[in-house]
């Protein structure tokens, strides 16, 4: 599971945010575009791309994209 690919997959869920604005250090829930639908899209992406089940609480309990990546990596 490559960090760079994960970041691309993560950023791909956004429609109005330029991918260059999203880095591993980004506090992703602070992005203007963040919404409950995006949260569900990221959960679905983790399932589809990595076969990892993530809950709404996991999203709630992580801050940066890197935190979230680590969580997914540990579940794989």
């Amino acid at each position, binding site marked *: 599971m490559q960090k760079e690919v994960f970041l691309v997959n993560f950023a791909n869920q956004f429609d109005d945010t330029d991918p260059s604005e999203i880095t591993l250090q980004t506090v992703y829930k602070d992005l203007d575009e963040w919404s409950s639908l995006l949260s*569900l*899209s990221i*959960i*679905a992406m983790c399932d*589809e791309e990595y076969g990892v089940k993530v*809950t*709404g609480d996991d999203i*709630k309990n992580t801050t940066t994209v890197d935190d979230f990546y680590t969580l997914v990596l540990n579940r794989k």
Partner: protein
Amino acid sequence: MHNPFTLGGKTILVTGASSGIGRAIAIESSKMGANVIITGRNEERLKKTYYLLKGRGHGLIVADLSLKEDIERLHKELPVIDGLVNCAGLTKVAPFSFATRDSFEEVMNVNFFAPTELTRLMVKTKKIRKGASIVFISSVSGVYCSAVASAIYSSSKGAVNGLVKGVALDLAPKGIRVNSVNPGMIDTDIFIKSAITDEQLKTDMLRYPLGRYGKPEEVAYAVIYLLSDAATWITGSNLLIDGGYTLL
């Protein structure tokens, strides 16, 4: 005492009785005098429901309605019944671009094809008595409204509502009534450890004019009405139970 809502002397099958709405329907029906036959996938949880039933003469059959062979075995083991409550169901939350055909098939299989096939077999072999009542547990979702990332679930419940209309017409000559109840969000464990957080559920709850989610028993009472002789002129209808949710 005069009580047109009694289920005394009626044998009622409840699917999905191991938890949530199905469990409440089974328990409340038994309190109204029915002989209840419960079915569900999980034997342990199904037994828990069984021990909560009031009175005697109830039955329990473990079956996984996502499996064709279990539907057929269940049908074979059942006696002639006076009421069928198709409650077994599941949900899958996925934004539309992730709503794959496999996801649709998984949900449609349990929410739509399983109750359809069980009902068909029961009718064909005359295991549903003339004058019986069939109730499908549908939803507000897919019929009156939907929710974010709910296309799969909404589609399955929309299909159930269409089915109810068609089957009601076909079974009318037999005096068998077919209806649905359409609940809004009910307090069950359907969203535990899911993509939806407790906070999101609490915010959602505020959108209900009556200020809360429904209780499983509140769906059960509506089902009991449709099963009882108080509803003998009601067929093909959809009873909305949503705390006012769809008014807004």
